[in-house]
């Protein structure tokens, strides 16, 4: 039986270094090639030796697909393609292709220049790797080779994030990457058509969460910022350069516009400016509002948000500053925080999760005195707010996607095992489909039942149509006779005559004959005519003929009567039918074995 195999190399019952191998219809595909944020050793990258112990991966993989530009989905790409060795095509959407190298370069800089690691990929490798990338458009079907085709769907989450459908023949797999089923200020919601894949591989970060409406959080956020600015305070928002930062920017920008506010908003420069540039370019990937209004004004050309300069931090009066990094552990955001922490009028808003040990984590837990370097203490008087904006689908969103795509099997990755367990139960219970959650390196095999396309000759079809009702009734299957010819990788259903002709064979007739003994006192011709009348009364709607040569024909079945001279009352009926009429023939023989009813007149 044909089967689809899925093996996660990363992200199996885990978050980080997404890398999933799929074998479908004889093709091997790698979905995502990410790195793990939590490790600094070999575990950082997926274990590619699973694919092959030595040598390049090119001959084992048909293609690599990257769903979006987050490093846990593309961070290992240059390592895989340049250092391990892969020369085949790498597919990603246009925005991902544009932004991905920026992030990879940034990642490389931090690892090599700051941490001083050697044996890491170089800038040149990133460039070489990106040369192998083939860009994808949404809803565009791309033929990787003659049989394998892929198609991208919108996934929300971040700019350019895509879900991918991989299809070989009638077998298909959909990989969601990370996705978001609720729209936000700059991106729309994920969407897929009813493509009924054999397996839907979905992320499950928030498998056990049902989120509240986004509006409340947005409103809270805006209210807090507004209040602080109105009483003349400064607001610091530590962010990571891409993704949420843009959403918050749009949120504040539109709010400023709406409320006619004058206080300046700054964005610390660097990486962000480049990224904003791409947001401007790929306006078609954003949400309805931004797409519709960009003719008047591109929403990413911020009117109120300006580039930040270090000296601005000391300016009097209210202001809002977005600064990197998000966890307040180093860099500009920390510098500004130190300057502003002493004033209770000011406020800091943490828009995301903070790792233990960072200042962000400390102040979120309400620590009022911070020990800085050189034994200085910093008193935290400013208000600390936490405001989470996450762009993953919650449990309801995942269920909604399943409902949209109607998969035959479900496979969960990119989430914690315990949470997956819950969702798995729910999916199996509510959709009655199989749900898998393989760990890293564990292979899930799904047996598929692909439909086999067969060419049918038009003549045969028309002939069968003419026999039955005028319309093919989708509710009732109909049987038809024909010959299946398997030749040169193709299947054809033709009429038997044509098959014989094509194969150069003679037609052989197959006839069944059978004798039935019957006690009947009448003469032979009389018996025959009695049989004729009997059959005529039993088989209504069939053509029954009494031929002059002493036979009765029912359709193509011949019935003869003979009797030996010694036992004139024991008549021997000779029945003969061709194999096509097997049903009718056997029916007749059993019927006649029962004998003729007594009350029959001879004529």
């Amino acid at each position, binding site marked *: 039986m044909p089967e689809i195999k899925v093996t996660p190399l990363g992200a199996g019952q885990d978050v980080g270094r997404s890398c999933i191998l799929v074998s479908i219809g004889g093709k091997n595909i790698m979905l995502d090639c990410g790195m793990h944020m939590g490790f600094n050793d070999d575990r950082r990258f997926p274990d590619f030796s699973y694919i092959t112990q030595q040598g390049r991966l090119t001959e084992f993989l048909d293609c690599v697909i990257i769903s979006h530009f987050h490093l846990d989905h593309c961070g290992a790409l240059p390592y895989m393609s340049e250092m391990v060795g892969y020369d085949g095509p790498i597919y990603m959407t246009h925005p991902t292709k544009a932004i991905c190298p920026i992030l990879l370069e940034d990642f490389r800089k931090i690892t090599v220049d700051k941490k001083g690691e050697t044996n890491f990929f170089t800038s040149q490798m990133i460039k070489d790797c990106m040369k192998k990338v083939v860009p994808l458009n949404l809803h565009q079907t791309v033929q990787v080779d003659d049989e394998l085709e892929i198609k991208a769907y919108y996934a929300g989450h971040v700019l350019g994030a895509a879900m991918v459908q991989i299809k070989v023949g009638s077998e298909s797999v959909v990989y969601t990457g990370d996705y978001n089923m609720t729209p936000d200020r700059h991106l729309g919601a994920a969407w897929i058509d009813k493509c009924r894949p054999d397996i839907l591989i979905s992320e499950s970060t928030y498998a*056990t969460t*049902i989120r509240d*409406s986004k509006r409340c959080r947005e409103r809270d956020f805006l209210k807090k910022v507004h209040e602080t600015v109105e009483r003349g305070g400064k607001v610091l928002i530590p962010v990571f350069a891409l993704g949420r930062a843009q959403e918050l920017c749009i949120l504040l920008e539109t709010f400023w516009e709406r409320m006619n506010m004058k206080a300046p908003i700054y964005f610390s420069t660097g990486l962000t400016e480049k990224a904003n540039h791409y947001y401007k370019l790929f306006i078609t990937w954003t949400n309805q509002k931004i797409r519709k209004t960009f003719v008047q004004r591109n929403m990413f050309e911020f009117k109120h948000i300006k580039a930040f300069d270090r000296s601005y931090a000391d300016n009097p009066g209210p202001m809002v500053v977005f600064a990197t990094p998000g966890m307040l552990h180093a860099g500009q955001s920390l510098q500004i925080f130190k300057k502003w922490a002493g004033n209770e009028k000011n406020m800091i808003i943490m828009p995301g999760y903070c790792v233990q040990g960072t200042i962000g984590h400390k102040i979120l837990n309400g620590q009022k005195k911070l020990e800085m370097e050189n034994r200085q203490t910093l008193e935290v008087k400013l208000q600390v707010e*936490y405001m989470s904006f996450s762009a993953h689908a919650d449990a309801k969103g995942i269920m909604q996607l399943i409902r949209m795509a109607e998969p035959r099997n479900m496979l969960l990755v990119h989430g914690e095992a315990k949470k997956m367990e819950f969702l798995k139960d729910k999916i199996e219970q509510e959709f009655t489909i199989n749900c898998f959650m393989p760990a890293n390196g564990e292979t899930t095999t799904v047996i598929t039942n692909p439909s086999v396309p067969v060419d049918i000759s038009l003549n045969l079809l028309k002939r069968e149509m003419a026999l039955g009702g005028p*319309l093919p009734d989708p509710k009732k299957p109909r049987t038809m006779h024909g010959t299946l010819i398997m030749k040169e990788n193709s299947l054809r259903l033709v009429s038997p005559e044509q098959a014989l002709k094509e194969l150069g064979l003679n037609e052989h007739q197959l006839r069944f004959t059978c004798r039935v003994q019957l006690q009947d006192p009448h003469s032979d011709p009389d018996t025959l005519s009695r049989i004729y009348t009997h059959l005529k009364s039993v088989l209504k709607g069939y053509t029954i003929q009494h031929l002059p040569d002493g036979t009765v024909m029912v359709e193509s079945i011949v019935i003869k009567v003979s009797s030996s001279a010694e036992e004139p009352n024991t008549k021997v009926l000779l029945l003969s039918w061709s194999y096509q009429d097997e049903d009718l023939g056997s029916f007749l023989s059993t019927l006649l074995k029962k004998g003729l009813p007594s009350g029959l007149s001879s004529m």
Partner: protein
Amino acid sequence: MAAHLKKRVYEEFSKVVQLPQEEAPAKKLRLTKPSKSAALHIDLCKASNPTDALQYLLHFARSSVEAESVEGVVRILLEHYYKEQDNSVRLKIASLIGLLSKTQNFNPESILDDTLNTFNTEKSHQVLAQLLDTLLVIGTQLPESPIVRHRLIEVAYKHLSDTYFGVRNKCLQLLGCLGNVDTPLNKDGQGLVPAVIGDAQSLISDYFADQDPRVRTAAIKAMLQLHERGLKIQQTIYDQACRLLCDDYEQVRSAAVQMVWVLSQLYPESIVPIPSSNEQVRLVDDSFGKISHMVSDGSWVVRVQAAKTLGNMLQVSPHFLEQTLDKKLMSDLRRKRTAHERAKELYASGEFSSGRKWADDAPKEKVDTSAVNLIASGACGAFVHGLEDEMYEVRIAAVDALSALAQSSASFAEKCLDFLVDMFNDEIEEVRLQSIHVLRQISTNITLREDQLDTVLAVLEDSSRDIREALHELLCFTNVSTKECIQLALLELLKNLTKYPTDRNSVWKCLKFLGCRHPTLVLPLVPELLSTHPYFHTPEPDMDDPAYIAVLVLVFNAAQSCPTMTALFSDHTFRHYTYLRDSLSHLVPPLRVRHTHTHPFQTLGPPIYSAQLFLQQSLGRISTIHNLQDPGAQDLLNFTIRDLQRLGELQTELAGAADFSATYLRCQLLLTKALQEKLWTMAVPLCLKHNAMATAAAKQMLEETYKLEFLYSGLENRQVATIHHVRLQAKALQLVLTARTRRGVEPLISVCEKFLQEVESFQRLFVVELPHLQESFVGKLLDLSPKLSACKPGELVKILQTTLRQSGFLNLQLPKQVQRASATIIEPTGESDNPLRFTSGLVVALDIDATLEHVQDPHNTVKVQVHTLTHTSCLTAHGLACQIEVRLLLAYSSSRLCKAAWSDSSTEGLQPAEGATEGTIPFGKPVKVFIMPKPARR
């Protein structure tokens, strides 16, 4: 009046009938009749290939055919139809027949047989579909004939099993439009019609499961069509329709939503079982749940349809309804409270701040995993999804649906409040505006909590004026629960006032209603609001401060129904009350105050009656004047005009009537003065000065008549006649003056003719009024009319002169309600010394905000005039501030009143500016604005 109107109607009607052009084209058409069909015939015969034939047909389709020749043309077309081999040509012919059958006054029944015959030979599916479409066109035109209908249905039935989807589509459409609406003939009519054909319903429902989605859609649509035509759809279809909700194709799902809705309205109370359980629910609840489910459909078209439909299901039980706003939150398998719940709790516990700490929304109790239902069965959270949808179309539909449902259920209104308030923050202004409107509509059912009010008030800072005004309106109708709410609202409104001073009126009005609604809540706030102190005198606030006025408006309106409040006022508050009662009487209600003598109207009883009486008396006094030449008449007029003007100032209700009468009287006075001079008998060169005065008087009279006619609303025909009469007098005066100053007869002739024409048209227009005008100028003139048209200009002038002097004073009859159109420019105020800076050579925008009163159709009639007061060159010079004047004009055009009478006077030479029937009247005070052009940057 009525008789007069009737006559006018007849006049106009007879004119239309008499128009000779009407017949001419008809005749022409009839002449071309044979040639037309013949030409077509020839064309079609000539066509050597299908492309040519198609061209001819396309060309033919553009020309119109008259009813009589349709049948012939159809015959010819059909003749070619049978000969034609090419499908596309046959298809075009079929569509042409449909088109032709729609010709007016043509009975399509005559071509029905011929069209039906074509079905016997047609093999092409496309052409068949087109032919069925043609039948549909014919059939819809003959809805009354059961035989035709029956035959068409038979055809449709026969082709229902066609393999081509288009044919099946059309057949279903035909069945939907023409199918039997009456109950299927199962009792006695069985013999007449085969039962299958009679029961279109079951026939159509068979196609709900067709393999082609387009046919499925058509089948549902046909069923809906039957429903619209009055057929009661059977409940058995419900299951099928519900299954179609999960169809692969969006148009099918969209139509199925409608179908399910229709059924839910037909059989709301019948009981359906819940699959996989023993329970049963009402059908309307079941369908509500199913449609709610569609709000999270993959296609936004379906989502919009579903959200809209939900708003129309008012019979749903409250339990299901409230589920739509329900969303069980969960975080890491722990039950979490929604932000709304938290806000409510915080409010209940008396704490104000929210979300200050990290993880204060941390989940509490553990969730029982088996109890969590991720795919919400039923209506769960439908609106939560709908309001969060990506497409604003869906969000708007959801907001509308919320509104409809909330209006019918108070408890639901209470529940959906949080969600609506959240929508105030939507990214699309349309959605925000809509949700504010909706909240206003349901505000009678609800009371806002403090935290909700806080969110609502935050929107007051929105830069869009529409939003702010909608919000003010909302606040007018809102109930709040505590005095803190009132304080909060007042505070935010004052903030709004400082940020957007143009909102002044709207804010005041809002506070007026707020005060009226919550007198008891305002009471404890009064000392604080008015900053009074039990021992000390506080400084008197500035009376011109809009914020202070706003506070006073709130307090006074609350005091209206709270008599104890006035005791808290300090002396200056009473003084300010008196002042505001006078200046902003629409905002400040009458109060029973301590010092009644400070209020003049309070003691006089209902002031309006006495004022009205005074007006009547004044006019009555005037009516005693018979001839304006009488001694003392002028003095009386002078006094009366003065009285009336003063009355108009004092009594706003009567301002229109008083102004109207005063203006009319002034016209009369002007005329009298111009005529009274003895200088009329003098030689021309000696009386130049007098002439100048008289000319000015005539000109002013004309201007005033236009004002009288167009600036006031509520005039009846009688008054209009009087006004026109004055205008005629003014014109006569002008004529006389022209005759005196100019020499030669030639120019006079044409002027005289003009005048006579006007007299004539006056007579025509106001036939009904003529009896009342016997003694007047026109009356006397018309007595002489046969002589007038014959006499020379010189004589005419003489006659006019004497008639003018001798004619009696025409009394003014006041109609019940006369209102004067008025305009007040609020913005720009004209007080600003800050010039409006702009780059010279470019356009500068100036926002004008004005209050218009008693203006009909303001979009078309009000215009803005910009005057440059300084020399125009300053507009291009740099760095110099210059002044422009902005004023509003009321554009009028007599065509609104009487087309025929005034169309001829438009080219009049006498007074080109005033004589034109279309013109403008300045109304409202002009406002001066400084502008300053800046040099363009290069």
